[in-house]
């Protein structure tokens, strides 16, 4: 069970027959593999002009964007399901939630995604510096402004509240002074490169958290990292995504934060510490997280090696369950743990395997989020069928009894062993299968339809 636990946390799970005997450190070395996503053309000569478009131009632009939104989503999901890249992708997904941001422009979405990926296992300092200058982030936060004369107060606030210190650890004065330091930060809409507008920058003396100086944005970021609270806050987020839906255990979390701070925010080192600590593998941290919709979906793809018959199906499933890649609900990121579960989302999750593995269609209607520019609102799904090579998996379990096959598949799919009555119930269902392939398929169907499969 221990390798399964590791792979469910560091990645999205394992396929049957995967060699899980490698030591954690060796496995983690694979995450050095960084494959940027490149499905969207770089920004063309028109740049990112939106204002002043005629209705027809706008319609064309949106149609093109609709296609690329789908492509970006597919490309990222495919990398999550791929052995070679899944470890880094899991980390990238975490940072996508942490630095939650939406953009209308596919090239900017792709660029930000690759920036997150590039720094995902590097230095949090460098990651934060890069994201602060990322065009999608600059634009997103500019759009949320309410006052022209303090253009970045929102960004300054969000940097502190959501990206580094957390609420209650800074003052309004800090926000105002930091905002002054970030003035002049912009990007070139033709190239999407960061642009520092000297004339728009307030280079006066600022007093930020007790320190006086002609601070610029980079200085603010560095000063925020000098506060151990940032390490604590980020470790708290890491805990929720990688350890447990239960609140952090103070002793362990404090130690991790102290280490993270001491290692100058080295992300890879922090994650390795997590995965090589014996406490991480104790019972209370197993099956202690409800899978997010993307974790559920990516996990299914990893564990079945399947391909959707309809290309919009995975996007529809994300919509139905409330987590669409590249479209976080707000800058606070996605919900956590039990917040994903209500009567209808749980019913849909438990029904999902039968929709994937059989010919059933669904008439479930995902909700429109009201935004005419959110092109994922239009993606509907009826046929969610997943084509799976059941023979391939059957070959992994040849010459085993049905009961042993079910047990082996259970070890791959579930984060905790089933209780005895559940195993008996599943076995009764699986024993009706007539061929080896059916045994495997029915095992998958039986186990993935259980509430236990929602946990990792």
């Amino acid at each position, binding site marked *: 069970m221990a390798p399964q636990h590791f792979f469910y946390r560091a990645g999205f799970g394992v396929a049957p027959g995967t060699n899980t005997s490698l030591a954690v450190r060796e496995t983690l070395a694979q995450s050095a593999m960084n494959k940027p996503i490149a499905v969207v053309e770089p920004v063309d000569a028109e740049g990112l002009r939106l*204002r*002043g*478009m005629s*209705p027809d131009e*706008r*319609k064309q632009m949106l149609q093109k964007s609709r296609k690329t939104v789908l492509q970006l989503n597919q490309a990222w999901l495919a990398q999550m399901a791929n052995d070679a890249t899944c470890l880094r992708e899991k980390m990238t997904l975490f940072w996508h939630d942490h630095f939650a941001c*939406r953009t209308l422009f596919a090239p900017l979405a792709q660029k930000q995604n690759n920036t997150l990926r590039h720094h995902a296992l590097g230095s949090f300092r460098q990651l934060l510096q890069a994201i602060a200058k990322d065009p999608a982030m600059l634009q997103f936060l500019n*759009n*949320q402004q*309410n006052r022209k004369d303090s253009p970045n107060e929102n960004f300054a*606030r969000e940097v502190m509240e959501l990206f580094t210190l957390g609420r209650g650890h800074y003052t309004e004065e800090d926000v105002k002074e930091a905002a002054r330091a970030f003035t002049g930060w912009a990007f070139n809409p033709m190239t999407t490169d960061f642009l520092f507008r000297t004339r728009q920058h307030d280079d006066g003396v600022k007093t930020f958290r007790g320190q006086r100086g002609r601070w610029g944005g980079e200085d603010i970021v560095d000063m925020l990292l000098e506060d151990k609270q940032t390490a604590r806050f980020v470790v708290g987020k890491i805990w929720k995504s990688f350890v*447990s*839906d*239960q*609140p952090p255990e103070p002793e362990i979390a404090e130690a991790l934060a102290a280490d993270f701070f001491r290692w100058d925010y080295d992300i890879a080192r922090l994650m390795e510490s997590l995965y090589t600590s014996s406490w991480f593998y104790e019972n209370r941290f197993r*099956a*202690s*997280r*409800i899978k997010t919709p993307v974790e559920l979906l990516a996990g299914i793809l990893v564990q079945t090696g399947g391909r959707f018959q309809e290309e919009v199906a995975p996007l529809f499933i994300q919509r139905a369950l*409330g987590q669409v890649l590249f479209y976080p*609900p*707000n*800058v*606070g990121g996605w*919900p*956590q*743990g*039990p*917040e994903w*579960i*209500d*009567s*209808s*989302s*749980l*019913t*849909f999750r*438990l*029904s999902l395997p*039968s929709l994937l593995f059989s010919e059933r269609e669904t008439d*479930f*209607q*995902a*909700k*429109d*989020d*009201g*935004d*005419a*520019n*959110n092109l994922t609102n239009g993606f509907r799904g009826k046929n969610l069928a997943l084509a799976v090579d059941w023979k391939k998996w059957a070959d992994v379990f040849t010459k085993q009894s049905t009961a042993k096959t079910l047990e082996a598949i259970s070890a791959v799919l579930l984060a*905790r062993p089933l209780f005895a*009555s*559940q195993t008996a*119930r599943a076995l009764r269902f699986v024993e009706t299968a007539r061929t080896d392939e059916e045994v495997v398929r029915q095992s998958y169907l039986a186990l993935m*339809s*259980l*509430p236990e499969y*929602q*946990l990792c």
Partner: protein
Amino acid sequence: MSTRRSFLKQSALATSAWLIPGFLKAFDGKPMPAGEKRLVVIQLSGGNDGLNTVVPYRNDVYYQVRPQLGLPASSVIKVHDELGFHPALEKLARLYHQGELAVLNNVGYPNPDRSHFRSMDIWHTAADSSEYLSTGWLGRFLDARCHDCAAGHLAIEVDDVLTLALKGERQKGMALRNPKRLHDTLQAPLFQELAAIDAHGEEPSVSYLYKTLAQTVSSAEYIYSQTGKVASGAEYPATDFAGRLKTIAQLIHSGIDTRVYYASLSGFDTHVRQLNEHERLLKVFAEAVDALVTDLKKHGVFDDTLILVFSEFGRRVAQNASAGTDHGTANNLFLIGSHLRQQGFVNGTPDLKQLEQGDLIHTLDFRSVYATVLDRWLQADADRILGKSFARLDLV
């Protein structure tokens, strides 16, 4: 007076993220006690253009900045010296004349946010503009009802996906498109068997999932068993939205003790070529609401029902270059009921001269409306639910 945050801290068990009630007992639903009030919330998603809904047809500024979008005064349904309704809102104007409609203008909140998801979150969670809450005002209404009970069915949303407004710390409302469909889905052997499993001795994470499932199955069973009994009989337009209101009516007629119903109509984000689309949507809205009100009256349940209609923001005063409007701020809000203490246009007209960056300035915080509805209509602890005390209005 506790802050919202400390309320949320107190109501959550300190040690557990799972908040499992003590013992999972069989659900026992009761019929709605006589005289208890119910609320129907209608959400217009996308940011409804308030100025073309309730039209300031005497205001020069309106016509100056909306050369194509301004509705000709001759077409506006004039019900008042200054304001009238969009021509598609004939049915709404009738409610106005019958004294069953209250229009609150300039409803919003300080430091308005013009992004859909952020502003909708604010309306759903009743948060301040700079605050991020993960529970909704109606979810917290359910939380305040009872600590350990299965209260999910007390708030029903007619949709496949549950909205944040109905998600509380411990309790969550139920999302269903129709009782029969949900019941049929849950009749599958998988769900029946799983719902029968008593997993409360298991790990909290597992237990929580089984508990939720068991409650879902028993709530669905209860709802379905009740709704079979009374036929609606009323005529509804053949639109998806009207169908949802019809489902609400059927649930109300069944006598179940649900206190809150929720339904959304989407498509109001009219950045481009607004006129036709907006007209279509307003017509869908008005005719569906009219059918609902007629139906409720016929069954003698309109007196106990209050309908609240809102949108996450209004739109800019001036039209844009694409014959549409962009995101704005304050908007109008409707209350529909038989015994409104104030009717018609309750709080003045929008001021199109005093704008902030081209947008209307709110004069009424929406949370006052929530507080009034929670306190005076639903008899709930509004201050606790909203985390702060908001002034009550003399409306219900």
